[in-house]
């Protein structure tokens, strides 16, 4: 269960109230003065926290990683249909088997064997150009689907990381604010996990060995149940922030939120770039991933023993 961003407005309000108290403590450290001084100081403290209730507003309408889980499961189902013997693990993460292999995939090659004695040009080329190439092509399709599945999982990882970071930042901000004004020099070692959420993975497209740029999740995504991929990932970013006073806590939180927003873009661009490049690979190598329709399908439009199609069984 990831953090519900619906809690952020409440935490922002809590932060604001703690901020007003902290600012008042800071202003009255040496006494509030007489003759309405306390009320004036409280007004100044409240003014210093104006707008804090909206500090998380940019993050209230963000994707829920759980919403990606069904699509990732569907793609696992698709991969199960494309899994040939020896190609059953996730090629992007290198993890254990996604499913058992699908024995039906050998049947197309078998149909080519049945035509091996037939003399027609289309019958002869069917075995070599389609039947024999079908299972290797399925393994390339399997890899291509895995690229999509892992890219969506990586996007889910981004938003799980964002929510984890918002949960920690919003709690830490309140805790630090509670202490602000009563002790000086507090530091805030805020850690953003989002920098490690998307990793790039060099992948070859199954039996075709054509490079398919891919990404994977750099953390285990709870809602999809897919573990993290290893290698090539970023490290969590540690931000050395100043939390020594009420206004510093707010400005440091704003710095952290800006960094978080920037890093979302960095991570998501990795996903877009990998998929755009892989789309280009599919376009340029389409026949490797989708075999051209064999000429044999046109046989019913010709005499049954037409030498250009079936011919006869020698």
């Amino acid at each position, binding site marked *: 269960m990831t953090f519900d961003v619906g809690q952020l407005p409440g935490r922002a309000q809590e932060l604001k109230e703690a901020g007003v108290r902290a600012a008042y403590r800071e202003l009255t450290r040496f006494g509030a003065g007489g003759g309405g001084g306390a009320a004036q100081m409280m007004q100044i403290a409240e003014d210093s926290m104006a707008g804090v209730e909206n500090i998380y507003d940019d993050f209230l309408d963000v994707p829920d990683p759980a919403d990606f889980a069904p699509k990732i499961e569907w793609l696992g189902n698709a991969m199960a249909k494309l899994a040939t013997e020896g190609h059953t693990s996730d090629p992007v993460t290198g993890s254990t088997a996604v499913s058992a292999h699908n024995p039906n995939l050998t*049947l197309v090659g078998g149909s080519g064997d049945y035509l091996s004695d037939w003399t027609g040009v289309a019958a002869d080329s069917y075995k070599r150009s389609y039947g024999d190439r079908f299972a290797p092509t399925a393994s390339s399709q399997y890899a291509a689907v895995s690229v999509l599945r892992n890219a969506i999982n990586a996007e889910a990882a981004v938003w799980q990381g964002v929510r984890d970071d918002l949960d920690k930042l919003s709690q830490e901000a309140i805790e630090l604010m509670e202490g602000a004004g009563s002790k000086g020099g507090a530091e805030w070692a805020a850690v953003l996990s989002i920098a490690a959420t998307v990793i790039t993975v060099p992948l070859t497209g199954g039996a075709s060995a054509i490079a398919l740029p891919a990404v994977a999740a750099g953390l285990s995504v709870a809602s999809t149940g897919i573990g993290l991929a290893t290698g090539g990932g970023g490290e969590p970013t540690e931000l050395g922030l100043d939390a020594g006073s009420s206004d510093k806590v707010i400005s440091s939180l704003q710095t952290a939120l800006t960094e978080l927003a920037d890093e979302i873009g960095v991570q998501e661009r990795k996903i877009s770039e990998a998929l755009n490049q892989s789309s280009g690979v599919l376009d340029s190598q389409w026949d490797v991933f989708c075999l051209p329709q064999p000429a044999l399908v046109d046989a019913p439009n010709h005499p049954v023993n037409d030498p250009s199609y079936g011919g006869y069984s020698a």
Partner: protein
Amino acid sequence: MTGKRGDELGVELGRLWYAGTHDLPAVAEDYWTACTNVPSLVSAQCARGGGLGADPGASIDDYSSRIYQMLLGTRTSVALVGEALVWIADEYAKTDASCRASFESTKTEMEAVGDGS
């Protein structure tokens, strides 16, 4: 007519017929299942307010549509090959009366066994 005749031809045509009526349709069905498991409009899940991040939804949708076309194209080809094999088996059997008995018995036997072996 040149080439195989009689029982040998009938058995071979029976195998082609079985591949066209059972084996290849099974593969085509698997590909259709794979097609129906390719998500469309993942971009809807990626949507967010305020211009946050670098929404990859369009890139995901573009790639996903290629995957769908790849699987659908394969499914269509396999299904059409199956139809062609059945047509070849049926039509060729009509040209040679000597193979018809073994053609029919092979079809019956293979259907009873449930595979093309």
